[in-house]
C-alpha cells in the first residue's frame, strides 16, 4: 500500500514497545459485538494509481466537458479563464497541505494571503471590513441574515424575487430551523418589484441581488435609505463577482452587508463546489461577524506579522454563544481568488469585466433577433433572460443533443411557476467566441 510507510517489522517492533500482542488489543475498548474481525465484505481492495486514474477517466468520458462545446451556462456559477499561475500556487504543498493557522509563527504564508484577500474583498465591495472567507455565496447569504437578526434583534428577513432561487431556499431552510421568518417575494423576471413598500418596523434585513438572478442591474440606494429609516439592514448578494469590475459597488449604495460568490475569480466550475464566499460589512458590525478574521500585529522583535484575531466570536472559544458554528472555511479557494485577482490587478480586472459585458451585449442583440426569442432585460452585466416561444427546458435539451450548452432554463430552479417555463438564462463570459455564438444562434433558429 503506497501510502502506508510502516513495514511489518516496524509494526512488530512498535507493538513490542507498547507492550501489546496485536493491533486488535489496542481496540479492546470497542465493545466486542461491534468489532469487525476482517475487512468489510463487498468492497474492492486497494488499487494502483494507473487503475484509479483509468476509473476517473471513464467517469469523465460520461460527461460533456464545457471546454469542447459552445457554452452559455451561468445562474450563479460562471466559466472564466483561470491563469496557469493560480493552479501552480494553490498546488504548492506549503499551501495545499497546511491547516488553519493556529500557530502563526509558522503559518505567516497563509495569514498574509488571507489579509490580502480580506483587503481585496473590501475594495471590491466598497466596504470597511471582510472576513477570511465562507463556504460559498449561498451559505454566506444565510449567515448575513443571521447576523442582521443579531444586530437588529428582529426576526423577519425580506427576500427579493430577484435573489437566486437556491440562495433563497438556503435562507428559508435556516429560517425554518433556527426560528425566524424569511418572506420571499414572487420571482421577479422583469426586475420591477418594489421592496421599499414592504419594509416595516419588524424587518431585520432586506436581501437583494445585483445583478439579479435574471440579470437586471439596479441601484439600491433608495432601498438602503428606506431600510435604515426603519432600523433594518440592507444585504446585497453578488453571484458574479466579475461584475464589480464595472458596476457601482454595493457599499456605495448603502449596503450594510455584502456577500459574494467568489468562484468566478480563480476557481473552476467544479460541478458546483468547492467555491468561496466573500463576506464584507461596516466596521461598526465587526464583532457580530461570523467566520475567521486575520489581523495585523507585531512579533517579539517588532516585525510586522499576522494572526487570527477576534476569535472570541467563534465556536472554539465561545461554544454555544458563538456568532456562528463555522470552523473550516474555504482557505485554498480564497488563495485561488487572491492570486487570480492579483494577476489581474486594477487594469486587468476592469478589462475582464468590460470584455464580459461587451460580449454579452453582442449575444443579446443577436439572440433577440431570432424569431421566437425576446429579451426581457433593459440592463444586464454578463447574463440576461430571454423568453422563448417554447418551454426552455425542452429547448436546452434539444440543443444539448447538438452539443451546445445553451444556458439554464429558469424552470430548473423555479419548478412550480408556469410563468417562468419559457424563460432561459444566458451567460456570456470572456471565454465565449464567434465559434460558440454562431452555432447557438443558428440552433435556436432551427429549434424554435
Amino acid at each position, binding site marked *: *500500500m503506497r*501510502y502506508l*510507510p*510502516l513495514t511489518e517489522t516496524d509494526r512488530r517492533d512498535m507493538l513490542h514497545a507498547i507492550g501489546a500482542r496485536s493491533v486488535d488489543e489496542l481496540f479492546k475498548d*470497542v465493545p466486542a*459485538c*461491534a468489532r469487525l474481525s476482517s475487512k468489510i465484505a463487498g468492497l474492492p481492495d486497494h*488499487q494502483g494509481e494507473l487503475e484509479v486514474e483509468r476509473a*476517473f477517466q471513464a*467517469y*469523465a468520458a460520461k*460527461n*460533456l466537458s464545457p471546454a469542447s462545446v459552445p457554452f452559455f451556462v451561468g*445562474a*450563479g456559477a460562471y466559466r472564466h479563464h483561470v491563469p496557469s499561475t493560480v*493552479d501552480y500556487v494553490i498546488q*504548492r504543498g*506549503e499551501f*495545499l497541505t497546511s*491547516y488553519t*493557522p*493556529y500557530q502563526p*509563527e509558522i503559518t*505567516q504564508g*497563509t495569514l*498574509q494571503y488571507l*489579509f490580502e484577500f480580506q483587503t*481585496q474583498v473590501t*475594495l*471590491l465591495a466598497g466596504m470597511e471590513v471582510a472576513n477570511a472567507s465562507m463556504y460559498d455565496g449561498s451559505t454566506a447569504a444565510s449567515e448575513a441574515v*443571521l447576523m442582521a437578526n443579531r444586530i437588529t434583534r428582529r426576526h423577519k428577513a425580506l427576500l427579493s424575487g430577484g435573489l437566486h432561487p*437556491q440562495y433563497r431556499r438556503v435562507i*428559508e431552510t435556516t429560517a425554518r430551523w433556527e*426560528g425566524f421568518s424569511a418572506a420571499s417575494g414572487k420571482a421577479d423576471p422583469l426586475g420591477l418589484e418594489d421592496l421599499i413598500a414592504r419594509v416595516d418596523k419588524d424587518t431585520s434585513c432586506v436581501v437583494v441581488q445585483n445583478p439579479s438572478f435574471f440579470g437586471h442591474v439596479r*441601484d439600491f440606494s433608495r432601498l438602503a435609505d428606506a431600510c435604515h429609516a426603519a432600523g433594518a439592514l440592507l444585504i446585497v448578494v453578488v453571484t458574479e463577482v466579475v461584475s464589480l469590475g464595472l*458596476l457601482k459597488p454595493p457599499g456605495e449604495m448603502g449596503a450594510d452587508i455584502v456577500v459574494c460568490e467568489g468562484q468566478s475569480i480563480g476557481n*473552476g466550475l467544479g*460541478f458546483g*463546489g*468547492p467555491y468561496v464566499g466573500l463576506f464584507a460589512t461596516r466596521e461598526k458590525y465587526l464583532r457580530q461577524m461570523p467566520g475567521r478574521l486575520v489581523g*495585523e500585529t507585531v*512579533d517579539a*522583535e517588532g516585525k510586522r*506579522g499576522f494572526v487570527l*484575531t477576534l476569535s*472570541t466570536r467563534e465556536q*472554539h*472559544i465561545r461554544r454555544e454563544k458563538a456568532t456562528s458554528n*463555522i*470552523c473550516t*472555511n474555504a*482557505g485554498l479557494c480564497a*488563495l485561488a481568488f487572491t492570486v487570480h485577482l*492579483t494577476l489581474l490587478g486594477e487594469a*486587468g480586472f*476592469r*478589462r475582464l469585466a468590460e*470584455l464580459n459585458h*461587451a460580449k454579452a451585449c453582442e449575444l443579446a442583440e443577436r439572440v433577440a433577433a431570432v424569431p421566437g426569442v425576446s429579451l426581457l432585460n433593459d440592463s444586464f452585466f454578463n447574463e440576461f433572460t430571454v423568453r422563448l416561444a417554447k418551454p426552455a427546458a425542452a429547448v436546452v435539451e434539444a440543443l444539448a443533443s447538438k452539443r451546445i450548452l445553451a444556458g439554464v432554463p429558469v424552470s*430548473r430552479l423555479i419548478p412550480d411557476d408556469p410563468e417562468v417555463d419559457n424563460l432561459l438564462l444566458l451567460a456570456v463570459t470572456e471565454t465565449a467566441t464567434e465559434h460558440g455564438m454562431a452555432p447557438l444562434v443558428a440552433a435556436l433558429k432551427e429549434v424554435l
Partner: protein
Amino acid sequence: MVQSFDRSQGRVGVAAAAAPASEATFTGNRGLQIEEPLIFELGQSGRCGVDLPEPPKVKDRLNGLRRTGEIGLPGLSEPQVVQHYTRLSQKNYAIDMGVYSLGSCTMKHNPRLNEKVARLPGIGDLHPLQPVSTVQGALEVIDSLAHWLKTLTGMPAVAMSPAAGAHGEMCGMMAVAAALEAKGERGQRKVVLAPESAHGTNPATAAALGFTVKPIPANERGRVDLLALKAALGPANGSEVAAIMLTNPNTCGLFENDIIEIAQAVHAAGAYFYCDGANFNAIVGRVRPGDLGVDCMHINLHKTFSTPHGGGGPGAGPVVLSAALASHAPYPWIVRDGEGWRIAEEGREIAGTPIGRLKAFHGQMGMFTRALAYIMSHGADGLRQASADAVLSANYVMASLKDVMSPAFDGPCMHEALFDDSFLKDTGVSTLDFAKAMIDEGYHPMTMYFPLVVHGALLIEPTESQAKEDLDLFIAALRSLAERAKGGQSADAFKAAPRFAPRRRLDETLAARKPVLRWRPSNRPPEDDPLKQAAE
C-alpha cells in the same frame, strides 16, 4: 546599528533592536527566509499579470450604474506574482514537510493523484446546472462515494451536500429537529446533551437551532460519566432531551466503551444520537457506527479521507443517517433512475420530508472526487490497515513518552495521544512554551489546550502517514524538550521560542485590541523612492 532596507515600507531604516547586530542583514532576510511585503506595497499602475484583448466598443447596458473611481487593486506582472506567493508559501509548515501532529485535525498525507483526477476535463470543469444528461459520470462519482460511505459506516442513507464538518452537524441536528417535529415533540424536547470534552462546534450548532445545551461531565477515565448521563435521561427530565452529541472516538483520543449502553439509554428516552465523526479515521473498516446505534454522523472528508486541508478549507461534511432520519435528508438527492442518475430537487421529486436546502448546487464535488480516489486507492483492505496504523502510531508515541511526559489517562488510546501539563509543573514552562519550542525543532506543534477537560492539554495525532524512523526522531525531540524543561534554568529559553521561525511570537493582544484587518494606503509612509534612500 546596522542599516536595513524594508521592502514593505520602501525605505532604509535600522535593524529592529531586538535582533542582535551579528544576526542582522541589510535586506532583513535570513538566508532562505525572505521578507515579503503585501501585494498592495508591491503594485505599480501600468503592470498587469494577464493579457486580455481590447473589449469591442458597445453601448453599455448598465442602467447608468458604471463604477466611478479606482478600485484600488495593485498591478503586478506574472513573475512578481509567482515570486510573491512562492515566498509566502515558504513561511508555512505543511504535511508535505514532516510530522504535523495537530491532534483532532488528522494531518495525514494528501496524495497528488487525487489532485490530478479532480482536475480532469469532464470532471473539474463541469457546470452544476448543465443538463443532467451531460453529467451522468459526475453523478455516478457522487453515488459511488455515497455507497462507500454508507457501507463503511453501516448506515442506510447519506446527505452529501454539507460543505464542512460544522455544516454537517447543522444538517444532522436539523434532521433531528425534523424528526421530532414529525412526532409532535419538537416543542417539548429542547435539551441537547454534550460532553464537556466536545468540539466547540457541537454546542454552537445546538444553540443555533434553539436547543439548550446541557454539558455532561467526563469521568476519571476520560469517558462520558454514564451515571450523570443516565440521570439526565432519567424519568425526571429524559422527556425534554432531543439528542446527545457525542464524538467517538472522543476528543481525548479514547473510544467510549459504554457507547452501546449510551445509545440504548438515549433511544429509550426517545432522543436521538448525533455522533461527531471527526475521529472516524481511527476506526474505518474496523467498526461501523451503525452497529453502535448512531442516528447521524458527519464525516469530515478532509480528515478521514485526506482531502487537502488547504490552510483552513475547503472541507466537505457528508452526513450518514439512520432509517429514522433518512427521509429528512436535505435535497438535492442523487437518485438512480433506470439506466442513469437524476438530481431530485425539492418536495415534489422526493418521497420524504427533507429539511430543505443547505447550500447552492450539489455539494463539494471537488472534495468528492479526491475522497473517492483516496478510498479506491486504499480499498477495503487498505482502509482497515490505515486505521490500524494510525492507532498503532499514536500508541507508540504514547508509550515512548509516558515516562517523561504525563499521559492524561491510562490504557491504550485510539488515533491520538493526550497529555496533560503536570510534567511541566514547577518548571516555569507552559504548554504554550513547550509547543513553541517544538517549532524550533522543525515540527508543527500538537493541538494545545484542547480538550478542555484536561489541564494544559497537549493532543498529539501522528496519523498513519509517518515512517517509524520519523516518529522515532519526533519522539526523541519531544523527550529532549521534556527533559530540558524539567532540568530547570531553561524556562527563559522556552519563553523565547520560537527563535528560528519566520516570526517570533506574535502579539495577539495587540491584534485584538486595535484590529487592523485590511491594508490601507495610509499605512504607506510618505517617502516614495526607495532606491534614492538606499543611496543615502
